[in-house]
Each structure stands twice: as structure tokens, then as C-alpha cells.
């Protein structure tokens, strides 16, 4: 069973729909016990890092995430769900995050003519485009597998560590090529 973690960080309809479109049944849960029993975990999220971390701790899902990653369980982080896997975020005056991945999440610098948030389709590793919506980015780290450029910064857009894969962009909103990434995850 594939569990989508609900920690009140945005709308899960798109993620559910995208898995349904590739024929994968999912369960939305905020119960750490359900997460622990799942074969695979999807960790989406949009919004602010601080309230996300507060909600993860309040529900006990923070420990469920750490246990799943430590056990090498297939785990898919998306957008804010990727960012909070890093050690800390500059958002909201500084937030301690889960620390599964080394490094920090920072705000895009202010560059004349460059809009923040980044909204739209951008390339990963100079190739295919995927759909991004974010104002903060994760630094490159030893587990970075995909790099994207915006506002003069090269940031982590894809990362892999053991059973964990995570994307800064939204595979569930990135058309056919996004669905292919979800299929890869479902097949692993």
C-alpha cells in the first residue's frame, strides 16, 4: 500500500489524481502507524516550512518519516516535502528540519527582472522541463541527482539517497514525463 502523508501542507488532490491516472491506489493518512505499515510513502507539500515542521512534530509523522528513510523504504518527497528533508531552512526566520539530507534551504536572491516565486517549467540537468512553484531552494548536496538554474543559482531539483527520491518540481503536474517519474517510483 502506498501512503500519502497529510500534514496539512497543501492540497493532496493532484498527487492522488496523478497516482490514480497511472493505476496506483493510494491512502491519504496523518496516522504514523498507517505510515509505518505502508510499503511506500509519498511526502508531498506546499506552503511554509515552519508550519509544516510544526505539524509533522505534532502528528508524530516526523518520526515516521525518519524511520521509513532509515529502513530504506521507497519514499518520494515532492516540493516542500523535499525541502524539509534537509537540515534547515532559512524560511520564517530559520527552521530546523528533518536532517535526512545534508545542507540548507535558502531563499532565491533578489535579481532585477527575475520573479520570485519561480513559477513554470524549467529544465533538469539541461534536459526535460518539469513544473516548478517555489520561492526557496535546496543547496546542492552529495545526493543531488538533478540540478536546475534560476535567479543565478544552481539548486537541487532531484535527489536520491537509498530508497528515497525527492523532487523540487511537481511530477504530478508535469504532464507525461512527470507521470513517468511516478511510474518509476511505483515500480521500485
Amino acid at each position, binding site marked *: 500500500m502506498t501512503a500519502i502523508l497529510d500534514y496539512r501542507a*497543501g492540497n493532496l488532490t493532484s498527487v492522488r489524481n496523478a497516482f490514480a491516472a497511472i493505476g496506483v491506489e493510494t491512502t491519504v493518512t496523518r496516522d504514523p502507524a498507517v505510515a509505518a505499515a505502508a510499503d511506500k510513502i509519498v511526502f508531498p507539500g506546499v506552503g511554509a516550512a515552519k508550519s509544516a515542521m510544526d505539524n509533522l512534530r505534532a502528528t508524530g509523522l516526523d518520526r515516521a518519516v525518519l524511520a521509513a528513510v532509515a529502513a530504506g523504504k521507497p519514499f518520494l518527497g515532492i516540493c516542500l516535502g523535499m525541502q524539509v528533508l534537509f537540515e534547515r531552512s532559512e524560511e520564517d526566520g530559520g527552521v530546523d528540519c528533518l536532517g535526512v539530507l545534508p545542507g540548507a534551504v535558502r531563499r532565491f536572491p533578489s535579481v532585477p527582472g527575475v520573479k520570485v516565486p519561480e513559477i513554470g517549467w524549467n529544465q533538469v540537468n539541461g534536459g526535460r522541463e518539469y513544473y516548478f512553484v517555489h520561492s526557496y531552494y535546496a543547496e546542492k548536496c552529495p545526493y543531488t541527482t538533478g540540478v536546475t538554474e534560476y535567479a543565478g543559482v544552481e539548486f537541487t531539483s532531484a535527489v536520491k539517497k537509498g530508497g528515497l527520491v525527492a523532487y523540487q518540481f511537481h511530477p504530478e503536474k508535469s504532464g507525461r514525463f512527470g507521470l513517468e517519474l511516478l511510474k518509476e517510483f511505483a515500480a521500485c
Partner: protein
Amino acid sequence: MLTKRIIPCLDVRNGRVTKGVRFKDNIDVGDPVEMAVAYSGGGADELCFYDITASAERRSIDIGMVEAVAAAISIPFAVGGGVSSLADMERVILAGAEKVSMNSLAVRNPAIIGEGAETFGRQCIVLGMDPVKSPATASGYEITTRGFRERTGIDAVEWAKRAADLGAGEIVVNSVDADGTRGGFQLEITRLVADAVDVPVVASGGAGRPGHFTEAFRDAHADAAIVAGMIHSGEYTIADIKRELKSAGVPVRMTW
């Protein structure tokens, strides 16, 4: 590199997509879900649905249609028109739309921009504006409401800045002077707004041929542009527009 977005806009009345000229003379052009699937498969970067009302008389949003679109496509889409409260926004977003677009509602009640941004995140909140040329304001453009029927005396550029400060994540500049005429986007006001705010700006109204999009991106500094009649009619495809943009050196997504 971040690419410029092409966003087909579908005006939906009584369950069918229509296309009018200057908000009049609407003609039926197809089924909303079928068209969403076709445009998504044809290279649209995003979609936008306006005025999805269950019926012309009862102005409630057709949530079933939003759900059907969300289940059928896997690219982002926005819903505008008929949204009159935070509760409406929540229904639209939970039904699977990424973004909610507000226009007259925000002019009547600017605070709802901030309330929406706080509740759903600013990336969900799109401000649509309908400026017309007007000597009465500093920028030379004045905001109208109710589909260009009412003038407000509000300066268009000042309103864009205020809306961005309040929490709008994106601003659509829809020009009545150009809407449905296929004579090209209103570049001047689009550029004034794009240069005044730090959130993405979408050019809307007036596209008639692929070269108009090059103007919107290169000359008016838009981040995205709306297309309707010229592709609904079958005269052009999204790929035609993107090929033109690519040859003009504008970054666009060419594989989908």
C-alpha cells in the same frame, strides 16, 4: 532555463466552451474536458477556465467539471469567475485546481487576496485585472470591473502593486481594447505592470498570430500569455506558437 508559458483559456458557459469577441457574441467551440485533454497533449503549459458556472442564471461554480478536468489532465490549471468567497476558493482548490483567479471580487474586497494567500499559499492566488486606457489615472490605464462594464477610477499599475503586496502570486493583465480582436496583446499596460511587480505577469487578450506572443514576452516582459480564439478555431496550434517563439529566441518547452 525557466520557459515562458502558453496558457489556453477556456470560457465555459452551461457546460460548453464558448468564445466571444469583447465579451459578446459567444459561440460554442467544444467540450471542456475534451479540450483540456487535447490542449494538454498539444503542449499547453497550463490551462485556465473562466466562468465555469452550472447555469447562466445560478452563478455557482460547477465543481463536478473542475473535478473532471483535474482527473483528466496532469498539468496545472486555474479557475476564475464565479468565485465569491474563501469557501468558494477552497471548493475549487480541493476539487483539484492549482490556482483561483479573482477579478471584480478583489476590487470590491481587496482583503480577500491576503486571506486567500494566507489560507492556500500565494501561489494559488491569481489576480485578474481588466484595465482600459484612461487619461484619469497616472499610468494612463484604469481598472474596470464586471467584464469591463464598470469603471473604478483605480490606477491599473497601482492596483497591481497593491495586489502583489496583499499576496497575489500572479497577475493577469487582460485588455478589453485587444480582447477577441486578434490584433495583438496590449503591450504597453502589460509591460508597465510586468516591470512594476515582482510576481509573474500573464498577458491576456488580443492574440491572433504566433508573432504576437513574441511581442508579449520580448517587448512587454510577460512571463506567460493566454491564448484562446486563434487555437479554438483550429487556425493555429500551440506548437505553431512555440515554434515561432523558439525561432525568435524565447525559451519555451518543446517536448511534452
